[in-house]
């Protein structure tokens, strides 16, 4: 049944983006699902991918609402890797760099997946709400948050 490995020499190219910290750790907990893919990681802290044996990986500039002026720089670096890697799917667990990755990926007609952080137990994160209409698969890790926001609940990493 695993089409990607048995019937095609062309695995799904996936760019998985997460900022350093909890978002990155959650992305690491989802690696099992991407085993058959041609996978590349992007995060915001150098040394972090090596610590988790995540390779290949690229470092992108961090940005958040407080230092929004860094967004263009972050977007530029993301765009560079998108053009070089040409992913079929963008996956992010957060935060703002992940939002930008999904926006840019969508422009390039890639499929996009948002898995909202399990830390958002009360409501969908601001970043998550931003990609509501961009994400092809828009997930919350809490059933009640999914219900309230209109996202899908498919489980949680806890």
């Amino acid at each position, binding site marked *: 049944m*695993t*089409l*990607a490995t048995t*019937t*095609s020499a*062309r*695995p*799904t*190219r*996936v760019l998985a983006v997460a900022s350093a*910290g*909890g978002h990155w*750790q*959650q992305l690491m*907990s*989802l690696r*099992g*699902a*991407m*085993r*058959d*893919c041609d996978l590349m990681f992007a995060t915001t802290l150098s*040394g972090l991918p090596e*610590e988790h044996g995540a390779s290949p990986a690229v470092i992108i500039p961090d940005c958040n609402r407080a230092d929004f002026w860094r967004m263009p720089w972050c977007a530029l670096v993301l765009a560079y890797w998108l053009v070089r890697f040409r992913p*079929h*799917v963008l*996956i992010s667990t957060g935060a703002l760099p992940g939002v930008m990755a999904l926006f840019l990926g969508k422009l390039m007609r890639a*499929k996009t*997946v948002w*898995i909202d*952080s*399990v*830390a*958002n*137990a*009360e409501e969908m994160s601001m970043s998550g709400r931003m990609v509501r*209409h*961009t994400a*092809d*698969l828009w*997930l919350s*890790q*809490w059933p009640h948050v999914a219900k309230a926001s209109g996202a899908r609940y*498919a*489980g*949680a*990493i*806890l």
Partner: protein
Amino acid sequence: MIFVTVGTQLPFPRLIEAVDRYAAEFGEPVVAQVGQDHEPRQHIETHDMIPPQRFDELFRSARVIVAHAGIGTILSAKKYLRPLVVMPRRHDLGEHRNDHQLATVRHLGNVTGIHVAQDCADLFALLSQPCLTPPSDTLGQSHIALLDTLSDFLRTAGPAAAASLGPPAEVAPNPNEE
């Protein structure tokens, strides 16, 4: 040894004071990453920030981890299978910008190995137990379900699915695609 971490940003004096009192009373060694908290403590070893490698060593060798209800710490506890006691930061005490940690712990009740302490009394009661349950080393049902959904999506979104016979059934049509 007890390892305490409240992250590296916001201080959490209520928790650090409680652990300091525990160390004074029971004499157990405690190492704590206290973040931006410059109060001197009598009975515990405190650090503003512990480098990642040392952090991992402490995490692995501790009898129990005590922390704020940060998701990073919860995931580390699961990774290293260390019992974890979490105390949620409270907005009304100025411990965080909002009450999301209270919300997190409300839903952590059934996760094996994560123990919630709302206050100092809870914390003492939990730390006094000789062997707190550690997290389970198998993936939970809900984690497996999430991985399955994700891998199904990835299979149908790639070139392999596009090349195979039949439509990619799992991919929901995207209403925004022109």
